[in-house]
């Protein structure tokens, strides 16, 4: 508007002061023309020059009418030509500079968009929005090849025979002057996104306005820069994921180490206590025997206690040795022989019947049990450990049932108590070394090795062991040993 007013005002001045083709005032026309060209580009520059020519034209034509084609008139025509040239050239330069600036801004904005920490889909969405705005596109789409197939932004899917798919395959830019289907032609340009010489995707631009060759070349260059930016963003995202994964693993490992450290301290305390208790008993009773006279019956009773405590000490040490062996990956040393399990089971139950009178101990043997190939000592340890546990974790006066029965090709033994049982979540872990169920750990002390050793011994015989608990109505431990074929 300012340019129009300037042109009209200047023409009025010329008309009033010196309406001639060679008037020096005609040079002032260059000012609004050049200013308009600088400010608005080629089209506006040419339009301003045409406006100046239209306004100044009648003055020149009147001179021709009056005096014919003189030198002064020629100057008027030269001014017309120069005005057009100035408008077009200055406008072209200004437009070129503006386009270049816009491209740098677009590249910068696009790099910022993809550099932000987010999943690839989010980065592509931002990139699309930024480019559509900066490149003045009616529609814009981005395709990036990923490990799980092409990631598409701007369309539902990538049609295999589309322009973009073709560009991704060939790595060459494609341009069509009209994509069709509209009153106005839709220029469509697809440029490859390349990183380190490899095509990693494509950017598709659709616009109603022209996409000149110079702009197409520049956009192809932009595609290469964007490809690198996207690749960098992808690497950065992968690095972030790796760092997060590493941090998570370190946190987990630290937690596990802390847990192991706690368990180790607990174990040392427990082991010290478990070892000290029988030692104290042996030490105390042996001192009594050494320093005081006792009746023969009393001496036998004290000797029995000392033997029992020594056996207990031996079991604890054996458990530690077995677990240490298993943790080193070594098998348990068994001396297997064919044997009848029934007497072994009866003997183990009988031992507890004699020593633990606080509970009722019931033994049921269903029919004739088949012979098994087993280490008698190991089987005895398994039975005594399970019966001792059942007695330990069930109230006085309750019943502990031991039931042996033949199974197809095996012998199954149940040890069932009437204690409070074990929570379902804890059942899965009670065979782990050092694990002591929180619900039972409060009731009795222990090393947490007994059931782990039992399981190892049963499995060393080719058998299995399971624990069942029915909602606070006691625990049933069942182990199965294969029969001799």
């Amino acid at each position, binding site marked *: 508007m300012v340019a129009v007013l300037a042109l009209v005002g200047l023409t009025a001045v010329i008309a009033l002061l010196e309406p001639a083709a060679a008037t020096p005032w005609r040079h002032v026309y260059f000012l609004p023309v050049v200013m308009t060209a600088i400010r608005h580009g080629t089209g506006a520059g040419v339009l301003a020059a*045409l406006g100046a020519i*239209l306004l100044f*034209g*009648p003055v020149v*034509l*009147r001179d*021709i*009418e009056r005096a014919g084609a003189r030198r002064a008139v020629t100057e008027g025509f030269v001014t017309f030509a120069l005005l057009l040239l100035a408008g077009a050239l200055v406008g072209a330069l200004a437009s070129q500079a503006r386009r270049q600036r816009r491209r740098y801004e677009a590249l910068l904005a696009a790099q910022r968009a993809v550099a932000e920490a987010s999943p690839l889909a989010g980065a592509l969405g931002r990139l699309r929005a930024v480019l559509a705005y900066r490149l003045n596109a009616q*529609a*814009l*789409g981005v*395709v990036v090849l990923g490990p799980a197939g092409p990631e*598409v932004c*701007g*369309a*539902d*899917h*990538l*049609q295999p*025979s*589309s*322009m*973009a798919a*073709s560009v991704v395959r060939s790595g060459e830019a*494609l341009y*069509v*002057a*009209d*994509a*069709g*289907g*509209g*009153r*106005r*032609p*839709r220029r*469509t340009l*697809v440029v490859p996104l390349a990183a380190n010489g490899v095509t990693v995707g494509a950017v*598709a*631009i*659709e616009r109603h*306005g*022209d996409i*000149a060759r110079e702009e197409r070349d520049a956009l192809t260059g932009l595609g290469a820069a964007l490809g690198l930016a996207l690749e960098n963003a992808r690497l950065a995202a992968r690095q972030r994921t790796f760092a997060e994964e590493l941090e998570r693993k370190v946190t987990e490992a630290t937690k596990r180490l802390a847990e192991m450290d706690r368990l180790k301290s607990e174990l040392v305390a427990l082991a010290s206590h478990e070892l000290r208790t029988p030692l104290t008993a042996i030490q105390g009773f042996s001192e009594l025997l050494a320093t005081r006279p006792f009746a023969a019956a009393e001496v036998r009773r004290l000797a029995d206690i000392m033997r029992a405590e020594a056996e207990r000490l031996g079991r604890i040490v054996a458990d530690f040795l077995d677990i240490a062996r298993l943790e080193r990956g070594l098998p348990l040393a068994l001396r297997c022989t064919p044997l009848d399990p029934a007497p072994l089971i009866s003997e183990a139950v009988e031992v507890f019947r004699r020593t633990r009178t606080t509970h009722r101990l019931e033994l049921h043997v269903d029919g004739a049990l088949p012979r098994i190939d087993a280490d008698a000592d190991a089987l005895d340890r398994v039975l005594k450990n399970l019966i001792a546990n059942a007695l330990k974790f069930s109230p006085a006066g309750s019943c502990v049932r031991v039931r042996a029965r033949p199974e197809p090709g095996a012998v199954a033994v149940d040890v069932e108590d009437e204690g409070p049982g074990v929570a379902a979540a804890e059942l899965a872990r009670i065979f782990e070394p050092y694990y002591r169920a929180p619900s039972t750990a409060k009731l009795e002390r222990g090393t947490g090795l007994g059931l782990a050793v039992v399981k190892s011994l049963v499995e060393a015989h080719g058998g299995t062991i399971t624990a069942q608990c029915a909602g606070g109505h006691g625990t049933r431990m069942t182990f199965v040993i294969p029969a001799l074929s």
Partner: protein
Amino acid sequence: MYALGAPHRRRTAALLADTPLVLLLVLGAIVVVAWTLAAAGVVPERLARGVTAGGAQGALLGTAVAWAVSRPDARAAFLPFGIATVACGGAVAASMIPFGAAAYLLAPLWLWRRRARLGGLCLDAPHAARFTVLGVALGAVLGVHLAITASLTLGYRVGRPAVSVLAPWLAYDAGANVLAAECFFRGALFDRAQRRWSFGAAAAVATAACLARYFVDPLLPRTLEMAAGAAFYVGLLSLGNCWLYWRTGSIVPGLCAGLVFFAMYRLLHVVR
């Protein structure tokens, strides 16, 4: 989005595809016959001139219609013949009978009634209202400038011609001159060119063709200054109309620009 979601096929249709060659041959033959008969004194010469003018307008309109048909079918093949007949009829009527120039107006009516089938011309363009105003402004600016320049330089004056003199010219512009130019040079030629090349190249082709059409027009005065003026104004008008078509996809803004400009030209032309 086309580039991602549609199968890509390269369009290879030629720029002049679907040109109604039979119609052009028939029109050419009619003109030759008319001049032969006029030379033999069988028909008056003004009839032959009317047939020639009508044949030229009919060729432009017929080709534009043939290129603009949106649903090519059996009936579509007759549409170019229809508009050519109407154009020829208008020209003959204008040359032979008093107030016959009113017959020129049958051509825009014929096109308007078939606008749905002639999607390429986009005659009903409610979206182009703003650009229609711009078209009127463009025609007015060029027309006023022409009037001022001509009255300053060439001894022409803007006058108030009688309606009986002005009306046939306005009818000719509305029904033949401007209508045929916009339908063919913008709605057909420029439309096809812009779908192959840049705006600049397409506008240059359409404008060059448009100028050529005016230079072969026997109705244009043959003086140097008139030819230079015609080239200047018709060139600017053509470029402006190409831009209007480029922005809207409709010939309506260009029609308005042309009608306003030629109305001003007729005011100037008739008073000396």
